[in-house]
């Protein structure tokens, strides 16, 4: 996304460009900030974490001879007296996608050095994330109230509760971390750290709007994982 113009090096598009980038000296990902490259590789690793969780879930569910609870019933919510399947989940998905959209715009405005828009959008994303976590807490407490536990549940195979709490918990953990960072970064945007290039608070790196993009990658990834959880956990 950044603007790679490299002196003495022609950036060719497509696979040809890939071969040349790879064969060239100094950097392989031309024009990619170190932090961004690091976030990408980290997300790749994290993808393997979530894949292993979901694969375990698939294997566990495929091999249990006991009936698996029907998610559209378990996760139904009463609205106006009728049980609507997956209502809460639908709203959560909606919230998370909304926050993903605001994040994408925040990144855009960050690059335009539009401090105000960027800051508000990051803040909006943080609030969206917080709402999501809140609804997750609600969902958990509802299920716990209904007797679902990691080790047992009244609806069917015991593994249902185990995988549910573990996977959504791990995802929720990612969201929570993201929310914390979103709030911090919102503050930093408003305080102008990214314009003045002020030294960071943790690793003492110089501030730059690229950090918003890096955080954005993380946040979109969290959304991405939710897409898979939604499909495999709630729709299966």
């Amino acid at each position, binding site marked *: *996304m*950044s*603007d*790679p*113009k490299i002196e003495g090096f022609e*950036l060719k*598009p*497509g*696979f040809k*460009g*890939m071969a040349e*980038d*790879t064969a060239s000296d100094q950097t*392989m*990902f*031309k*024009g*990619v900030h170190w932090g961004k*490259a690091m976030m*990408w590789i980290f997300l*790749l690793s994290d*993808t*393997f974490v979530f*894949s292993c969780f979901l*694969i375990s879930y*698939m*294997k*566990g*569910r*495929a*091999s249990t*001879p*006991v009936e698996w609870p029907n998610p*559209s019933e378990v996760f139904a919510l009463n609205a106006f007296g009728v049980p609507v*399947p*997956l209502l809460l989940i*639908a709203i959560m*998905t*909606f919230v998370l*996608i909304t926050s*993903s*959209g605001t994040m*994408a*715009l925040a990144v*855009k405005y960050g*690059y*335009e050095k539009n401090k105000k828009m960027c800051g508000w959008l990051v803040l909006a994303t943080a609030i969206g994330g917080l709402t999501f976590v809140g609804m997750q807490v609600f969902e958990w407490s509802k299920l716990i109230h209904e007797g679902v536990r990691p080790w047992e549940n009244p609806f069917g195979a015991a593994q249902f509760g185990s995988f549910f709490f573990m996977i959504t918990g791990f995802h929720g953990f990612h969201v929570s971390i993201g929310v914390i960072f979103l709030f911090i970064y919102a503050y930093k945007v408003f305080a102008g750290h990214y314009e003045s290039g002020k030294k960071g608070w943790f690793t003492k790196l110089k501030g730059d709007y690229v950090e918003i*993009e890096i955080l*954005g990658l993380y946040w*979109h*990834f969290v*959304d*991405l994982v939710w*897409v*898979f959880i*939604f*499909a495999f956990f*709630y*729709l*299966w």
Partner: protein
Amino acid sequence: MNDTEKKQSSSTHNIGIYLWIWGLLFVLSFFSYLVDWYQFQGLLRWSLILFFMFLKAGLIMMFFMHLFWERYAIVNVLLWPMTAIACFVGLMFAEGQYTLFSRLFYFFVGAE
């Protein structure tokens, strides 16, 4: 200036594209919700779920995470490892079926 060059030389993109993708994500999520609402079953259900899932994931990666505009060097590095996951998924699916089979075949199920 051809298309790809334009893609790489501008560091920000028209706001329209983000709004579009955003809207599409809502629509696709709604569709996958409908899959459950209408209680489609069997192969149809699965192909729809997977189709919407990959479409959504693809859109997020391509546009929100900007992979569409990144150079192929990074895109490839990110996508090739997925073959390992695909292999793992496929084999674990077979393994799950096999475990289920042997449980049903030899055990008195219900008491397992």
